[in-house]
């Protein structure tokens, strides 16, 4: 949207000049990720590539584990927007990590329906088992623990998000099993979403 009807915003006017300092390893999208990104961009009008910025950030995060400033620059170049616009988005949404996180990201839902079913106690137990507080990562880089807001599976409370998967109906006494399972069998040890079983 423009801010004054008579201004010509199409020619670089009102384009942020904010500079973004280097941070993190050098970042270049893999050819495969670039091709995926172009496919996603084709879902939107050609002049609306910006719509694909979240998708581009997901690809960057998958490639590198977190979103460094160097990755933001690569996203800005691929989407053809300013780095400020990318930073704006990264800093707003909770699912983008701006610093390295553990290989397994354990996210316990803490909102009312899960809390009514023992989510607080589950988080207490996970903190004990992992030896970290929420928001931290274990020294071996294997686990990060977060409390998150309602995941939309309140009938399977407490529900835990692990990376892209779900783990449902977790009692406090299940904490050790969850961590052990992830260490030995990875995602295969998770319940997944009960609605999704047949698809996978």
């Amino acid at each position: 949207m423009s801010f004054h009807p008579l201004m010509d915003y199409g020619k670089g006017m009102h384009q942020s000049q904010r500079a973004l300092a280097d941070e993190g390893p050098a970042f270049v999208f893999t050819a495969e990720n670039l091709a995926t990104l172009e496919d996603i961009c084709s879902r939107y009008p050609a002049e609306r590539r910006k719509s694909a910025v979240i998708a581009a950030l997901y690809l960057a995060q998958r490639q590198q584990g977190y979103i460094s400033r160097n990755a933001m620059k690569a996203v800005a170049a691929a989407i053809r927007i300013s780095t400020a616009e990318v930073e704006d988005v990264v800093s707003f949404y909770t699912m983008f990590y701006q610093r390295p996180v553990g290989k397994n990201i354990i996210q316990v839902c803490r909102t009312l329906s899960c809390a009514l079913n023992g989510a607080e106690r589950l988080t207490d137990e996970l903190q004990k088992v992992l030896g970290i507080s929420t928001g931290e990562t274990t020294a071996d880089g294997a686990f990060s623990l977060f409390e998150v807001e309602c995941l939309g599976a309140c009938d399977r409370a407490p529900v835990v998000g692990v990376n892209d998967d779900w783990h449902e109906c977790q009692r406090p006494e299940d904490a050790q099993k969850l961590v052990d399972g992830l260490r030995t069998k990875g995602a295969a040890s998770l319940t997944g979403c009960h609605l999704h079983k047949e698809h996978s």
Partner: protein
Amino acid sequence: MELILTPHVNTPNGFTLDFYVKQGGYEALRKALSMTPDDVVDVVKASGLRGRGGAGFPTGMKWQFVDKKSSKPKYICCNADESEPGTFKDHVLMERNPHLLFEGCLIACHAIGAKVAYIYIRGEFYHVQEVLEAELAKARAAGFIGKNIFGTGFDCEIFVHRGAGAYEAGEETALIESLEGKRAQPRLKPPFPAVAGLYDCPTAVNNVETLCNVPPIITRGAEWFASLGPEKNGGPKLYCLSGHVKRPGVYEAPMHVTVKELIYGEQYGGGIRGDRKLKAVIPGGSSVPILLPDQIDIPASFDGVMKAGSMLGSAGMIVMDETTCMVWAAENLLYFYKHESCGKCTPCREGGDWLHKLLGRIERGEGQMKDIDLLLSVANNITGKTLCAFGDAAATPVLTTVGLFREEFEAHVREGRCTLKADWRSEARAHAHAH
């Protein structure tokens, strides 16, 4: 009772294209394409279908407001953000009946003259994206989506767009902003999306469950749909039961069903866990006022719940038993609202944080009597003073708990602690800040 939206959610492979087509799937689209767009809008208007996302606004009117004379493209945005605490019905529809949603999107596009529908799902629904995209590909290969559908010359595409973690993206203009690749923050209205929505083009934003009701309306008619429920509350409805019920889950029923039946009925929630006493119900997602046990013998309809002083909202019913401390419950929800405030409007951004701090202070036994009135004052300075309904939603848990359970707040101040023991709460946390 016949299930309309969820008859096959437990049937093996009930989500597949083959199964859907065998059940007569995509025939409603064929019928709709033989009708003029205006006739489709008229049928949906006559059915009385009201939006299932929370506001209950008539869907047919929403479509009629779309500026069809505009030379710009039109868009359908399906709101599948489903982030209201206590709500998980759209999730079931997308996982177990995705083609019903696609068919609803296609008919909606025909009705408003759109060629593209975007399904905006929340970031945490990674597994839902997988299902939707796999099934979309099948529907596209079968010719139900794409160019010249049924040889009628109707072209239409459906794309899935996944967000990245933001409750506010469920507000329709914030959803549009997010879809445009920006922060999910609401726009000043007017202009409404029907005039200037996605990419400044005429847009209708409809909830998943709303769109899923459209194919049966086209197939079986407006009168049939309206006759399923009380007057002005027609059609099937999905209810989400969570909290302290024996059988939490998603249940389909016409809106004649009462809140009491949903909580205690054997075919629904089955009563309170451990046969404890019911203390409070939040009937429509965390943003609506509480109903007390003596207020639940009412139809769980838009108008029925409204008459009782609350809202049906997203039909996310959170049930709390006698062991639930209402100060704690309010604090839990205000943490959610302060965390999820998009930050655009000062009363919500700052006020939510203040409310959470005040509630924490009282819950830990560090509050003063004057804090209780301060809570009300801050809450009342948020309501009605923000661009979107988030501000009112954030103030509601405070206004409703203080309004109905003031003596509990006073007891916390008097006793200097929370006196309710609950076997599901963290002992460590309850005493973490006590001195």
